[in-house]
């Protein structure tokens, strides 16, 4: 199913109230988190709760993604084994390397076979949050065709780089550009790092806009109240939609009249403009704007 991934909402994996309401908050994807949101002593508890939630809670139209613990910890593989068997839409692999992605993918091959799921049906998101990961983004993307997107984790990344994380985010300009470009090359989603300060609405909108302008296709949310704002920034404006519709109408007309090239408002319309118009209309349709 074709879907938008403008927002991926993190939900703590050991909280029943949040799990059962995760699907009604309007996020395109929800990330049920077994990693950072769960204390070391509750890893077992959250794993079982999330497994049961996937079996019985209605997540409506939200894509269900589970962030497992890093494979290097004692929890990672058990998370994968337990959660894989209830067939979430996707698994998110933290601190991903090529080896991790290959290993998870092979494990999922086995689970899918044992459980009788369609091969390759459980997708992957790679979390890029180290200097290594960033410099190897493309080869990580190439390590499994299960991958449908990447999430840039700027907090851990900047820590790994030993640089300061700022409100303006100049320091992640390169990371965003690199992830966005690699993702575009592989036609997968490029999800931007979450914004932490719930009080700074202006800074939040700037942050989303900056990431979008560099080619990030969506943003992680750590609070449901961020969802509408992100969707607002990613929604095509009425003017953009109208222009795209006119491009398509002009194209239809040109076809009818047997014209190969045509112009709109005195400007030549070429293939990239048509492609952009199609993307705009597709996004608008999926967002329920037209």
């Amino acid at each position, binding site marked *: 199913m074709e879907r938008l991934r403008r927002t991926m909402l993190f939900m703590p994996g050991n*909280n*029943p*109230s949040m799990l*059962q309401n995760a699907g009604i908050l309007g996020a395109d994807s929800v990330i049920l988190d077994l990693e950072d949101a769960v204390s070391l002593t509750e890893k*077992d*508890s959250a794993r*079982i*709760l999330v*497994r*049961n*939630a996937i*079996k*019985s*809670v209605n997540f409506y139209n939200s894509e269900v993604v589970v962030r497992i613990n890093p494979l290097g910890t004692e929890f990672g593989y058990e998370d994968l084994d337990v959660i894989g068997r209830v067939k979430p839409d996707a698994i998110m692999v933290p601190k991903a390397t090529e080896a991790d992605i290959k290993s998870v993918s092979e494990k999922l091959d086995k689970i899918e076979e044992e459980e009788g799921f369609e091969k390759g049906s459980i997708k992957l998101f790679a979390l890029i949050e180290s200097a290594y990961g960033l410099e190897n983004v493309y080869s990580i993307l190439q390590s499994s065709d299960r991958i449908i997107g990447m999430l840039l984790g700027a907090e851990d990344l900047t820590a790994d780089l030993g640089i300061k994380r700022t409100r303006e985010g100049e320091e992640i300009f390169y990371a965003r550009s690199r992830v966005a470009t690699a993702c575009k090359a592989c036609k997968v989603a490029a999800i931007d790092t979450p914004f932490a300060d719930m009080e700074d609405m202006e800074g939040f909108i700037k942050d989303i806009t900056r990431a979008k302008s560099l080619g990030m296709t969506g943003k992680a949310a750590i609070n449901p109240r961020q969802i509408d704002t992100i969707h607002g920034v990613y929604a095509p404006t009425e003017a953009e939609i109208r222009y795209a519709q006119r491009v398509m109408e002009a194209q239809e007309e040109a076809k009818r009249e047997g014209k190969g090239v045509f112009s709109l408002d005195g400007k030549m319309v070429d293939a990239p403009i048509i492609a952009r118009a199609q993307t705009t209309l597709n996004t608008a349709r999926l967002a329920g704007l037209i």
Partner: protein
Amino acid sequence: MKIQKPAKAGTMESNDIYIMVQPNDEGGVILNLESIVMTQFGNQIKTVIMETLKELGVEDAVVTAKDRGALDYTIRARIETAVKRGM
């Protein structure tokens, strides 16, 4: 599956259930349940707990449950966690 030691799982947050399991040397399952929805769902909760214990193969246990309006999936998860921790 035999409960070897006391173990607990869950919280007292709303929509959760707090479970404590203990060995029962006398045999059988003793269930002490408190719930904010006892009148409307007490029997349903007891059934879910007993079923889950049975599925896990637990025959002897003292189970204390303090329910804050948990749905069945949460009750099952918390029982399973407590039992596995108590093995």
